């Protein structure tokens, strides 16, 4: 464990290699270019492989290729880059391959612009590809959480044999914070992880076992309905075990501000401003956005709470849909959101909250 002052992109890159990532592929796109740049410098020294794909489509398929052999792999990109990866993300879910995918969100729809947003909420949690597949989606609110999420993402990817998605943003990629960087896992551990995958499911030496086939869909032994039932059981398992959220000053709250990821930092500051003014305001912050923490909103004392302000960096607002489903009409839900690189502002959030509390 060492204390370092690092930029978000580089911190994620460093954390991935320390967590045993030995394959990275990606295609340049702002605001995450420092990830491939950093990994291209360091990965060869670790005996791993860095490849710059000729597109995001090629890059995510390279990840598929590394993963089928049991190598810990990660890919990063931003927004429209993730759209290009969509088909193969479905294959990774369906073929049950443990990889880590991180999105440093920029604007949209289309190429949008390069300003930071949270504009890819639906893409990350509902529709990253055809077929309704799901994967664990983490949404760190600080660089420390981002680093911890990278380690955890590889663990969970292995545990559930699924891609795990880390939803970041242009602010997190570019900002610097001081963080505790965990120690690297040893080369022996990295080798043992790959060995275990080879023993259990990866393709490679066939000596002494039946042939294996990996395909993102039905295979010769598994009809699609059976496969989808198996995958659904895994989603339900994740919904049971992987709910993660933070309650901030909720004990006596009469109003709630809810936000996730980078947006929650401004929401927290707004809660602090309002508390100083004597308002009883708390915050609910989903840390994993799939599975969504419905229980956090069920635990609200609706006899006391008179309104909920949902805030995010997306126009139209997207996160608010899950909030509304979670609240089930038990309190009015208000929205304040920004887009196109306009960063949420604590003072503005507080203004909207005061409006709600009038």
């Amino acid at each position: 464990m060492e204390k370092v002052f690092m930029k978000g992109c580089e911190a994620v890159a460093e954390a991935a290699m320390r967590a045993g990532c030995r394959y990275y592929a990606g295609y340049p796109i702002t605001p995450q270019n420092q990830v491939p740049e950093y990994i291209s410098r360091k990965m060869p020294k670790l005996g791993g492989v860095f490849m710059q794909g000729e597109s995001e489509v090629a890059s995510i398929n390279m990840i598929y290729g590394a993963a089928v052999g049991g190598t810990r792999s990660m890919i990063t990109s931003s927004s429209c880059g993730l759209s290009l990866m969509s088909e193969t993300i479905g294959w990774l879910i369906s073929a049950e391959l443990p990889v880590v995918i991180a999105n440093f969100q920029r604007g949209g729809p289309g190429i949008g612009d390069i300003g930071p947003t949270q504009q890819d909420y639906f893409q990350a949690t509902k529709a990253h590809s055809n077929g309704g597949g799901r994967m664990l989606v983490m949404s760190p609110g600080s660089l420390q959480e981002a680093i911890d999420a990278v380690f955890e993402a590889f663990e969970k990817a292995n545990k559930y044999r699924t891609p795990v998605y880390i939803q970041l943003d242009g602010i997190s990629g570019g900002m610097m914070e001081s963080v505790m960087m965990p120690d690297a896992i040893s080369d022996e551990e990295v080798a043992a992880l790959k060995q275990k995958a080879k023993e259990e499911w990866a393709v490679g030496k066939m000596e002494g076992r039946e042939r294996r086939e990996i395909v993102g869909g039905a295979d010769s032994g598994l009809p699609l309905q059976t496969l989808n039932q198996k995958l659904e059981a895994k989603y339900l398992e994740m919904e049971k075990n992987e709910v993660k959220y933070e309650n901030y000053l909720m004990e006596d709250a009469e109003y709630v501000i809810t936000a996730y990821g980078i947006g929650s930092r401004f929401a927290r500051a707004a809660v602090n401003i309002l508390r100083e003014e004597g308002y009883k305001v708390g915050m609910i912050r989903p840390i994993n956005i799939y599975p969504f923490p419905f229980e956090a909103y069920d635990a609200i004392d609706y006899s006391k709470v008179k309104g909920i302000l949902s805030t995010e960096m997306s126009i139209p607002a997207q996160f608010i849909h899950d909030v509304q489903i979670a609240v089930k009409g038990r309190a009015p839900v208000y929205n304040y959101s920004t887009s196109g690189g306009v960063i949420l502002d604590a003072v503005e959030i507080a203004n909207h909250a005061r409006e709600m509390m009038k």
Partner: protein
Amino acid sequence: MKTVYKKPECIGNKKPNSYCPGCMHSIVVRLVAEVLEELNVVNSSVMFAGVGCDGNGAFGYLDIDTVISPHGRALAVASAYKRCNPENVVFTYQGDGDLIAIGCAETMHAANRGENVTVIFVNNAQYGMTGGQMAPTTLAGMKTTTTPYGRDPKADGAPMHVCEILDTLDNPTFLARGTCTDPKNIIQTKKYIKQAFQNQLEGKGFSLGEIVSACPSNWGLSPLKSIDFINEKMLPEYPLGIVRDR
């Protein structure tokens, strides 16, 4: 009694192939199986099949570890696998739609990087699996289900010559084109396939064997007439032989 010919051990044990009668995919897969056995690499080989009759038919019929790649992406998938697992023998098995239409970029760049993999490329001048639509390799004037009046090179593009296109790049090692119309050509094609694998074992880099093949079902021709079509129409456009050998 002397055994003159024997089916390779590594095909048809678990599953029959699903190719139509007269489809040359079945010959090509058999040649691949023979070569893997002769080079003693059956247990260390991984096939990265494309999406099409190519991958579908070989899937499970060829009794080796198999990865199906998203349509067109086999060479991106195989490149990464080989880099991470250089001890394995890696080959893609792709059709013309897979390799040079939707997968054009992946093919060009894997070749340009000189990836140490083997490519088996089955050119049957159209999309077999989806019912005979135009491919980049469809001949000028050839009728397909999406060129009902014949392919018009001015509007639909002209036939693409994969070996010759890749020959403009610095890094490919071996590019050759064969066919399976008669025993002589089958033996020659097998030599190309074997060299494409041998090169990989020697670490020589990107090696591609193109096989001009018949799709009797979608061509609307009998298997025998399909062979005539290859000889009379396909081979003048796609001449046989080694395009590059380094």
